């Protein structure tokens, strides 16, 4: 038993080092002056130290506005996705109605469409109503991506029918059953969907690039890209890495905060499904 634990722990540590190493390297480059990186980019220890790569970005007046835009779009996109998509998923998983199978297949089909193919029709649609350069143009298409429906439906299917039937006998409406009983039971699944959605929304690049073309409407991803000169990876590698850190750090922190909801502690099992 003990040796097994030792082997497992060693393996985990080794893999963790492998996983973290590139990120560590990224941070090292982020605090190294660009000039030194032009000559040598393999150093695992900083060849020099500077905060200018970060400072240069944060000094730009609009950075705060870009962050704000990303935050608004991400919060709205994630909230709407969680509510709308899990409700639809519940109907698909737990309710009987005509055309359910067809509608569900239609929803799944949406996952299999390369977004590069729909990009232009979607773009033109918003252009026709002068809808670009708005938050709605940035978060609404996100809510239409049916990944959450598919994930939540699969998890809802695992909830025994006895739970919903019991609630019905007690006189609860489907909405109340859903919000008061089903959702609290599904925290880990909801947390996953929430995490994926906010990360994918935040890191979306091509769509905000073509839709939010006014400087004030840039998201943090397009805003940071706008600073980039040609051949940036040769001339301003440290700045590029620093911008990557800046864009990713909020997501990382959010993950740290929310990841505990992925796990159900043993003490919670009494409030669980059994």
């Amino acid at each position: 038993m003990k040796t097994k634990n030792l082997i497992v722990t060693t393996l985990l540590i080794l893999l963790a080092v492998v996983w973290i190493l590139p990120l560590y390297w990224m941070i090292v480059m982020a605090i190294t002056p660009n000039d030194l990186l032009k000559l040598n980019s393999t150093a695992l220890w900083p060849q020099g130290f500077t905060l200018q790569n970060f400072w240069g970005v944060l000094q730009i007046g609009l950075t705060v506005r870009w962050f704000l835009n990303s935050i608004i779009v991400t919060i709205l996109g994630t909230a709407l996705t969680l509510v709308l998509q899990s409700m639809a998923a519940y109907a698909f998983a737990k309710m009987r109605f005509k055309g359910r199978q067809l509608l569900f297949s239609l929803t799944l089909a949406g996952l299999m469409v390369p977004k590069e193919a729909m990009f232009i029709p979607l773009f033109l649609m918003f252009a026709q109503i002068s809808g670009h350069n708005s938050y709605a143009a940035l978060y609404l298409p996100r809510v239409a991506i049916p990944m959450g429906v598919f994930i939540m439906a699969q998890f809802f299917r695992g909830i025994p029918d006895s739970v919903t039937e019991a609630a019905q006998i007690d006189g609860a409406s489907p909405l109340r059953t859903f919000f008061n009983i089903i959702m609290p039971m599904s925290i880990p699944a909801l947390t996953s969907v929430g995490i994926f959605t906010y990360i994918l929304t935040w890191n979306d690049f091509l769509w905000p690039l073509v839709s939010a073309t006014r400087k004030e409407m840039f998201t943090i991803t397009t805003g940071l890209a706008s600073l980039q000169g040609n051949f940036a990876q040769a001339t301003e590698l440290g700045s590029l890495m620093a911008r990557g850190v800046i864009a990713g750090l909020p997501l990382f922190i959010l993950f740290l905060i929310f990841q505990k909801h992925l796990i159900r502690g043993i003490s919670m099992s009494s409030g669980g499904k059994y």
Partner: protein
Amino acid sequence: MKSRSRINLPVLYFVLPFMVVYVIFQIYPLFQAVIASMFKWDLLTSSMSFIGFKNYTHMFQDPTFWSSLMNTIKFVIFSTPLLIGVGLLFALLLNGTGSKKVLFRTAYFAPYVFSVSIVTLIWGFMFNPQKGLLGEFSRMLGAEPINWLTDPTFAMPAIIIATLWWTVGFNMVLLLAGLQDIDPALYESSSLEGATWFQDLLYITLPSLRRTLELVTILQIIMSFQIFGQVYILTKGGPGGTTRVLIQYIYETGFRDHQLGYASAMAFILFLVMAMVSFFQFRLSKEEN
């Protein structure tokens, strides 16, 4: 009669809001794209002329289409088991509370928060024989560094490695969520009977995870079929076009060569391939029941 209307109204509540958004922002553009596949559609002028199935006949004679499709399929076949297997390993080992587990989970998931441009920037450097860490390590060990991104044998593996690093956290998180729904009492009673961890894994964990594993598999396959960003930035489809995947070709055709009709046709074919694969997977899982 009365009971039927009682069922339909709540269903409307639940399904309609999402469906409205979905139809407007996903189905309608998709519908337009499918129609467009029968047209010559110029991106810059938006001019469209009907050409029937010409896009499709052209496609089937286009060697770049076939090589791109093959590269995509190759990627799916080789990366899917790896991504699911490693994700499962991590989920199984790191299920539960405790700060050590939190630390490891965070380490394996962390890459996922970064965008494709920064991930490929890092790995573009990692893989480079002169200026990357992997090259450094090889030289320290006295070996010739591998030209990961320019050697046809290693280019696809390089992309798979970078993708694994970047996205394994997704599968790990989903599988962790699935593990939460396994009744702890099952393990308690099996330990009373003296079962080993391996027997637990085989007879309790994996069967209970079936539903989540199906979910992860189908999602992983669908996402792998649509791989693009990493390939485009790391190798641009090279060396010599040997890693060009289908979405890259669709992007090049539509955005670079301005041929949206042809791009839509290829996207539709890719969609059909994915639909077929999903269909077979559903069939398989139904039979296992």
